């Protein structure tokens, strides 16, 4: 689900269609400009260091289908009492397929009251978005969700 086997040909076709366009903005990306799963791992290590990441306590909410990858609603949340002794300190949203793996890094603390953030992200194709949360005890937790990004009929920007 994180990757599509026919990706290079899909891009080639998109580039071809755009070449035929009379006007408009190109949204095509150069081949090889995409991050992959290893880049996402590297981005996470860059932010949080080389610590083990536990599955759980973090949830990512994304729509099952997005008709345009330019703006996809996402909500990330972490289970935490958000007290002075036990709270979330940072949450990172990371992509295994966008040109850049890092999407956003949020810093919060006990005064947040609730570890939940919503925003809208770009998704350069169907993928599973990851969110890693760092707790005040230094432990790391992660969750993920995937969205199928469908192809528009009209590629003219």
């Amino acid at each position, binding site marked *: 689900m994180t990757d599509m086997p026919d990706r290079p040909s899909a891009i080639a076709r998109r580039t071809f269609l755009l070449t035929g366009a009379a006007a408009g903005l190109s949204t095509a990306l150069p081949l090889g400009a995409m991050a992959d799963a290893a880049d996402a791992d590297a981005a996470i290590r860059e932010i949080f260091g080389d610590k083990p990441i536990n599955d759980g306590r973090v949830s990512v909410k994304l729509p099952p289908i997005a008709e345009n990858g*330019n703006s*996809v609603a996402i909500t990330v949340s972490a289970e935490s009492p958000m007290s002075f002794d036990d709270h979330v300190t940072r949450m990172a949203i990371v*992509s295994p397929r966008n040109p850049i793996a890092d999407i956003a890094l949020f*810093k*919060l603390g006990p*005064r*947040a*009251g609730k570890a939940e953030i919503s*925003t*809208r992200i770009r998704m350069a194709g169907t993928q599973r978005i990851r969110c890693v949360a760092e707790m005040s005890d230094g432990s790391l937790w992660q969750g993920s969700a995937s969205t199928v990004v469908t192809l528009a009929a009209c590629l003219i920007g």
Partner: protein
Amino acid sequence: MATIRIAAPDTASAGDVIELKALIQHPMETGYRSGPDGKRIERDIIERFEVTYDSETVFEADLHPGIAANPIFTFYTRATTSGPIEFKWTDQNGQSWSETHELMVE
């Protein structure tokens, strides 16, 4: 040009967890698109968004081009004392804008 829309309560009781929303007008240009002339459009993004309330930063975000154009954020903070909640955002060139919302805490 920079405009922000803020949604936040005007009043709250001390200890309440309140929802804050901000919608900022900005293209968040990725640097990967090219215009009708075939030339690449330069990257132009907001890199940082922070919210200060009751003399402390209560929310911070480091942003990359993967954040959609006209970025929107919904997050939470605990009401402590009456005063301004300051929303501040800074682009990649260091230019920054801010807007405040007055919160009355009973």
